[in-house]
């Protein structure tokens, strides 16, 4: 098995470069001076480098407003999603086997339905209750946890919580809501991170909803702003790319901060800092600590002694 690592490393580096290219070209083109003739050959880094495109986009369109709108929509969407999805996932983990299976099938089926098979009538329903052209229309999917996948991610996490813990908490008179908040959620950090990241991208990147629903420019989010900019001048690449970078960087930032939860979803092979490994196994200790039965020091010692 111990063949030289070199070929694999080279392939990996090439692939990494390839997959970084779209973002690289976006940034590189955003720094190009507008109105220059086409480059000869591949222009990796434009010369001269200018930053003025970034200032320009805020001049010709209210990008600050769009940025704020996107941030508000995304914040509401993510917060609601985390609450509804984790509640639903927790509820699902408490169900009997048959009900759980049925729900699983339902969720898998829901996950498959493309928005475009529903968008017109969703639009009509919102129009009938007078809620197109509002933020509500943009965050509506959060009511159902945004995506069935998010519910399943929480469900898979909560399923690993030792049932005995839940039982003993019940005997102590804790309500299920308390158990969800005090025991289940603290153990679900990876799921919270993964769903947090995915739902951030869901709302931040959403182009179809604002395109369909919004008519007031004061409510526009960044994707619609990008479209506006394109409609104003579709060949002013530096400006378009600068706006794209402004829209992409927050998404990349959130991804960079939370990606480990998604890319190393199954805690076991987590390479470093086993912070959220084996959360199922430690659930009982956590619980005992939470209700104050065991002094914290003892909990720590026993978990270290393993």
């Amino acid at each position, binding site marked *: 098995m111990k063949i030289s690592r070199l070929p694999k490393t080279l392939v990996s580096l090439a*692939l990494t470069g390839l997959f970084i290219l779209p973002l690289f*070209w976006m940034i590189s083109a955003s720094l190009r001076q507008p109105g220059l003739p*086409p480059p000869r050959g591949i222009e990796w880094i434009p010369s001269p480098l200018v930053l003025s495109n970034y200032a320009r986009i805020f001049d010709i369109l209210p990008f600050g407003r769009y940025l704020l709108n996107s941030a508000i929509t995304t914040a509401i969407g993510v917060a609601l999603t985390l609450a509804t999805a984790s509640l*639903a996932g927790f509820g699902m983990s408490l169900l009997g086997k048959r009900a759980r299976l049925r729900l699983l099938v339902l969720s*898998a089926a829901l996950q498959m339905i493309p928005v475009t098979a529903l968008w017109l*009538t969703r639009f*009509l329903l919102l129009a009938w209750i007078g809620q197109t052209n509002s933020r509500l229309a943009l965050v509506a999917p959060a009511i159902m946890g945004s995506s069935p996948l998010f519910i399943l991610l929480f469900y898979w996490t909560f399923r690993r919580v030792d049932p005995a813990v839940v039982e003993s908490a019940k005997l102590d008179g804790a309500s299920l809501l308390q158990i969800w908040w005090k025991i289940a959620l603290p153990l679900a950090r990876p799921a919270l991170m993964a769903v947090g990241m995915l739902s951030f991208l869901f709302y931040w990147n959403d182009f179809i909803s604002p395109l369909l629903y919004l008519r007031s420019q004061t409510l526009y989010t960044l994707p619609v702003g*990008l479209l506006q900019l394109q409609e104003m001048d579709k060949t002013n690449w530096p400006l378009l790319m600068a706006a794209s970078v402004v829209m992409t960087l927050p998404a990349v930032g959130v991804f960079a901060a939370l990606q480990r939860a998604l890319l190393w979803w199954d805690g076991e092979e987590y390479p470093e800092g086993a912070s959220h490994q084996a959360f199922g196994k430690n659930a009982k200790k956590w619980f005992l600590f939470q209700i104050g039965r065991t002094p914290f020091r003892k909990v720590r010692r026993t978990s270290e002694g393993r």
Partner: protein
Amino acid sequence: MNSLARSRRLQPYLFLTPYLMGALLLVVLPAGVSFVIAFTRYSGMGRPVFVGWQNFQWVKSDLLFWVALINSLLYILQAVPLRILGALGLALLYSRPGRATGLYRAAIYLPTVIPDTAYALVWTWILNPFYGPLNPALRTLGLPAPSWLSDSAWALPAIVLASLFQIGEGFVILLAGLRHIPRETYDAARVDGANRWQTFTAITLPLLGPWLVLLSVRDVVLSFQSTFTPAYIMTRGGPYYATHFTPLHIYETAFDGMHFGEAAAVMLMVFIVTIILVVILYNLVEGWGFDED
């Protein structure tokens, strides 16, 4: 005590209420409404007028509908196999933790994070025959350098090409799938003297089968959604309707033409195709004993 026990039993459903209500309001109800609207003439104002099968006949005789359908199929035939193969290859490469695997995985996922609108815009730049970096690169390699989005033969493959980089989701799902194959199976195979290729075809591929089918069907179905933004931003369906896909067709029929009835008829067909695919998938996967994970 009895009522307490009952409330305990019902409580899980209470937690599930927002989810189920949301699914009802945002999926079941719209689907039901499109069922009704599809049989009416409706332009958003006044009352829908019942017209029977007229919309479906109109759709059937609408050349653009067939163009959209064929384009969508062409896209699916090219993009889905390539995307799945790409995701599989990358997942196999990075399934085991090693030095810098975290970095490589993150790099693979990175294009998926880029917002669709920005992603479509950067590809119009990359593919631009005069300014973009792709054609000079192709020319140095001695390959043909078509004018991509303005050439009706190359516009659709160009959108396929762009889609090949956004495969993070499939990549992560297949990583999870690979993790579910027990190590012992591989060890046993090695003891039996199987080489790498044999291990792959005899163990990895069959055990990964349900995941691959699931992903392919999901990719097919979601292409009715994921082709909208690239087509809308990069080509507006052109040139000469070469990238006029089904979702764009629905959008233009509904929101530009205000023919809600006809659009609902097309939507209903997409919806029914989706349901059929999901049912087939479910039956297939059930046979494999693909359960809660």
